[in-house]
């Protein structure tokens, strides 16, 4: 079988089987749709609110992506400092671990109160706060585990620390960086939605979700979940595509 066709058909058929199973489960148990919506309830929900889905979906997406971009910039910078300086590593690492240990759901109301009214800012901030940790750690680890010979090769020719970072250390950490970015994508979505759900008069898919809850519109809630999953998949594969371009060399080729 053609390999591209195969790459599409196999996942697609599994999705269809899953949806059929879901539909059957609801039908078999005779669950009302306020207990569990079935896939056939979702299309009407999408259709009724299609304008809102587009508008709020876009809001959720750009807030998440902006938060991610910020966490890439800040995480790389922090990871660089920690990876290149022993003192910074020893000093910042416990602080970071402690910060990461705080469940972000508890930070959300604090931030929401702190910057009351600025929904966009709040949401981006939480998406950023929740997702920069894996990036910083992966860059720091990648840099600090660089074999000294790599450094010596360039250092013996009189290269500056920046040249060594740019030509060797940074490209060498790219595979770890992309691994972390895949985790960060998922985390950033969690952050965005937490804030959108919690802040009053918020916007974005999180808000659509909570208004579905308030109006007891359960198919709508499930439709939001599916929309979020779809966006998560798309963003994840964007990262995979970037990884292929920038760190494709790290992939083990077969044969």
């Amino acid at each position, binding site marked *: 079988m053609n390999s591209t066709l195969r790459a599409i058909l196999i996942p697609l058929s599994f999705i269809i089987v899953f949806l059929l199973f879901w539909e059957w489960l609801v039908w078999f148990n005779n669950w009302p749709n306020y207990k569990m919506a079935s896939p056939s309830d979702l299309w009407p929900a999408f259709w009724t609110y299609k304008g809102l889905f587009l508008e709020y979906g876009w809001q959720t997406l750009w807030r998440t992506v902006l938060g991610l971009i910020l966490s890439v910039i800040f995480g790389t910078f922090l990871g660089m400092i920690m990876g290149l300086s022993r003192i910074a590593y020893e000093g910042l690492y416990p602080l970071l671990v402690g910060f990461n240990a705080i469940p972000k759901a508890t930070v959300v109301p604090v931030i929401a109160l702190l910057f009351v009214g600025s929904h966009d800012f709040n949401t981006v901030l939480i998406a950023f706060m929740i997702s920069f940790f894996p990036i910083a750690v992966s860059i720091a680890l990648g840099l600090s585990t660089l*074999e000294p*010979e*790599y450094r*010596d*090769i*360039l*250092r*013996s*020719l*009189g*290269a500056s620390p920046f*040249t060594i970072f740019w*030509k*060797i250390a940074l*490209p*060498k950490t*790219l595979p770890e960086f992309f691994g972390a970015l895949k985790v960060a994508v998922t985390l950033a979505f969690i952050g965005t939605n937490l804030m959108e759900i919690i802040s009053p008069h918020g916007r974005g898919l999180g808000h659509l979700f909570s208004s579905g809850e308030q109006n007891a519109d359960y198919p709508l809630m499930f439709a939001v979940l599916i929309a979020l999953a779809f966006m998560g998949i798309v963003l994840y594969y964007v990262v995979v595509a970037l990884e292929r371009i920038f*760190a494709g*060399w*790290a992939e*083990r*080729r077969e044969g």
Partner: protein
Amino acid sequence: MSDIKIQNVCHTYNTNSGPLHVLDQLDLEIGDGDFVAVVGPSGCGKSTLTKLVAGLLIPDEGDVMLDGERVKGPRSNVGMAFQNPVLLEWRTIEQNILLPLEIVKGHGLDARQRKERVSELLAMVGLEGFENKRPSELSGGMRQRASLCRALVHRPEVLILDEPFGALDAFTREDLWVVMRELRRQEKFTCMLITHDLRESVYLADRVVVLSGRPGGTQYVQDVDLPEDRGLDVLFKPEAISMLADLREQIAIGQKRQTIGEAV
């Protein structure tokens, strides 16, 4: 060109478990265009020696002179190769070999000349046509060949080899010894080779220096009077065998000294 003079060098590292005295009153002279092998028991400061000559480390005491000038820091006329070939996986073999030319200024080579230089070197080490391969497609021996090309691409005056063949299997290692002699015939450089392998030192070098155990100092110097144009069979000649026996004995003495030193 370039001669290396190491005079009365002492060096101590500060480690968590106290100071570690690695080199003590080390004297070593490598004439212009000479090939000197340094052997000695493990932990006798051989790698420290490479760092001193490369200018990556400044000795606590004594002088490292290159061309009559004190080495104060890294300089671009040095090429290095290690036991680990450290090729960059995201670059092709050609791009890997060209790396030093991206750092060293004033080599005056345009893109075409650089490509030619790479093919010339690859031909010398028996890797013709491997320009566009990735390091992951090469065997250990091939990677080490490419690493030698990278060390030589900018025509360094001094070549520092830190156990470059240590991790290879015996057959590949001997192939690379022959490659190394070929490189030496075609390129001009002063070379310091750090090795654990006495046969390697005798086959490749004009002079073998034995370091005593930690702290390392010059213990014994063996001039290698074998024909310039030598094949591997030279190692079975009586002169070579007696040299190897002498060197082995000297290493044993050095090791014993180190063991006694550690016991005290």
